[in-house]
């Protein structure tokens, strides 16, 4: 009798265990992918950062030397970091503000909005290489359409890609062309704002700009937070456009940090040094994202959430 009970218990326990396991089995493809393709390489690169790690030849443990060389000896580290920060300072605000502006415009009930939405989103679908080829032609000093148009207006256009004073700006503009993604996210956000809010405001005689500032932006703030963080991350990881459009030049005016990492890894084959580089980048992005998230409690409004003062008032 007692043995039967025990067996029953065991069967039940097994059953419960399997029941608990099932959800994990369902998400296992993602978990495994994360472990093998994200977390694994992440930890591995952290370890690599402490080695002199050539692709061909002996690996040697060097402790913190890679970090030391990067921070104290290699001027390119600071130069490339500065270029990246400058780029981010231009790119992030423009990307979010212009994305918002476009989204607001495309949210109007005007004939042809569908067509315009498609047109503005199209550049985001184009692959980086094709995009760069198009911009290389646009920016061409003597034959480019941009300087041709400027010429029509009586302005002698600069040598966009050949002049270190203009090259970074040229890359910012080319990068902003792909703000369709930001626009799409914000547009979705706009359309989920309840119409009643606007109707009530309109009936109370609230002007258009105030509706934007007091209704649209607060209601949109979670989306803005998301686009802000993703913009910062993509600004710091900028590589494709600069690599293909200017190769970091002229005079390293567009030599991004990601390119520095890339060159150390795949031109000089110093894998350990490059791994240490990318960990610095990882930490910078992590800290910036955390700061933005931390600040978000002050300016992001979630509809489903009540903050403490409101709760106390009730």
């Amino acid at each position, binding site marked *: 009798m007692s043995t039967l009970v025990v067996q029953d218990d065991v069967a039940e326990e097994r059953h419960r265990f399997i029941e608990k396991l099932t959800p994990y089995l369902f998400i296992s493809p993602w978990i495994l992918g994360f472990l093998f393709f994200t977390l694994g390489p992440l930890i591995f690169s952290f370890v690599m950062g402490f080695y002199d790690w050539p*692709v*061909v*030849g002996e690996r040697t443990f060097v402790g913190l030397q890679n970090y030391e060389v990067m921070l104290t*000896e290699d*001027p390119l580290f600071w130069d490339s970091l500065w270029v990246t920060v400058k780029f981010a300072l231009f790119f992030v605000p423009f990307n979010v503000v212009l994305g918002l502006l476009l989204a607001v415009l495309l949210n109007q009930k005007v004939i042809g909005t569908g067509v315009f939405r498609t047109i503005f989103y199209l550049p985001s679908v184009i692959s980086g290489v094709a995009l760069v080829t198009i911009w*290389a032609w646009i*920016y*061409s*000093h*003597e*034959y480019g359409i941009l300087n041709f148009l400027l010429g029509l207006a009586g302005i002698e256009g600069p*040598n*966009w*890609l*050949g*002049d*270190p004073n203009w090259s970074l700006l040229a890359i910012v503009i080319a990068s902003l062309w792909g703000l369709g993604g930001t626009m799409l996210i914000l547009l979705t956000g706009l359309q989920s704002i309840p119409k009643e809010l606007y109707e009530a405001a309109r009936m109370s005689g609230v002007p258009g700009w105030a509706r934007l500032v007091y209704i649209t932006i607060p209601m949109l703030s979670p989306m803005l937070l998301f686009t802000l963080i993703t913009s910062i991350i993509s600004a710091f990881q900028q590589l494709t456009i600069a690599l293909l459009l*200017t190769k970091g*030049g*002229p*005079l*390293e005016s567009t030599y991004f940090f990601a390119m520095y990492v890339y060159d150390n890894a*795949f*031109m*000089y*084959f110093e894998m350990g040094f490059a791994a240490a580089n990318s960990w610095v980048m990882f930490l910078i992005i992590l800290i910036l994202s955390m700061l933005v998230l931390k600040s978000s409690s002050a300016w992001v409004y979630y509809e489903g959430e009540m903050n403490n003062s409101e709760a106390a008032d009730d």
Partner: protein
Amino acid sequence: MKNYLKQFAMVITVASMALGGASTVFGEEVLRFATWNSSENLAILQKISKRFEAANPGVKVQVESYGDGYDKKLIAAFGAGNPPDVMYMWNYPKYYTSLVPLDEFMARDAEDMDLEDIPAGLINTTRIEGKAYGIPAGFTTHVVFYNKDMFATSGIAEPEAGWTWSDLREKAAKFRDKSSKTYGFAVEMKPDPYDYEQFFWSNGTRFIAEDGSSVDGYMNSPEAVEVLTMFAEMARTEEATVLGVGDSTSGSALFKGGKLAMFQSAMWSKGGIDKAGINYGVAMLPAFGNKPVHSSIGASAMSIAKATKNPELAWKFVKFYASPEAVKLRENDLPVRTSIAEEMNLTTDPVYKPFFEMLALSDRESNAFLRHRNWSKIQANLERAIEATMFEKGNAKKHLDNAVARSRRHLN
């Protein structure tokens, strides 16, 4: 159904090759050969490889064209422990520990392959610490192409043997025409330093000390400053157009379009110029005053990976590439064998002759990258100095001094 079977067999073949470089497929011995060549040049290599297969039944040569990404793909293959058996090689300092030294093979087969027919200067481009790691299969020296029709129309005398840079500048200035966007010569904003060293040599200096111990007094020597200043000066006075600034108009495109009277380049430009139907002549590199000219030599040499399972077969293949039969087939570079060059009358042909004359003068120096293992990093500083000088159209001394200072930490 048959098609499916074929596809299935294909998949299995590819998969088995991917899984650790199985060298035997369907009972054949497979030899993997990696090259940076593509299109026409690749077709030539495939032709030579087919001949090798015909002469060696049971051997299959798999020509792998890595194109522009050559160095990255090659290092990845070595890193993964699955390198090709035979490959084109130039960066010996980086790879030589993973390559087979060929001196023993060469000594054994010297007579059989008539090694004396290959100029020693060419084999020296593959030597590290005295050992040869490659056998050249083709090469090029540097020359100046000039558009004969443009010279005739403008009534300017064509370049003569023994000409100097001041001769070139004088001629170039006369070709400059703003309205037709015509230039006499072209200089590079971001030249490949490998080829740029020939100007240093020709002016009596070099990038780095012969023993690789120092760049101070070499890279920033008065002669070096003179070279950079001269090119910057040519850009400033518009005797030359500057290539490689923003727009990617290439020198060969300008030359082929009749917008450039003189163009300094090598064999790799000749095919395109021939096709464009330009009536051109070839001159040797100009000299700096009365100093001896020295050209850079670009050799396509073949090396064998230490990891190869069949070094004898790989060597046989390399030997075949340097054989008279194969050398004759290489139309897009120059024959490494003196006998073939003579047999094909190249040494007397006015178009080819200057290339061989340059070769005869260019055995004194070897490239900087052979002299220091960190050269690629030092070179980045030099490239920056050249670019900055060309951009500011001057200040060569300042930029070269800066390059020397920044290179110091790489010299230990």
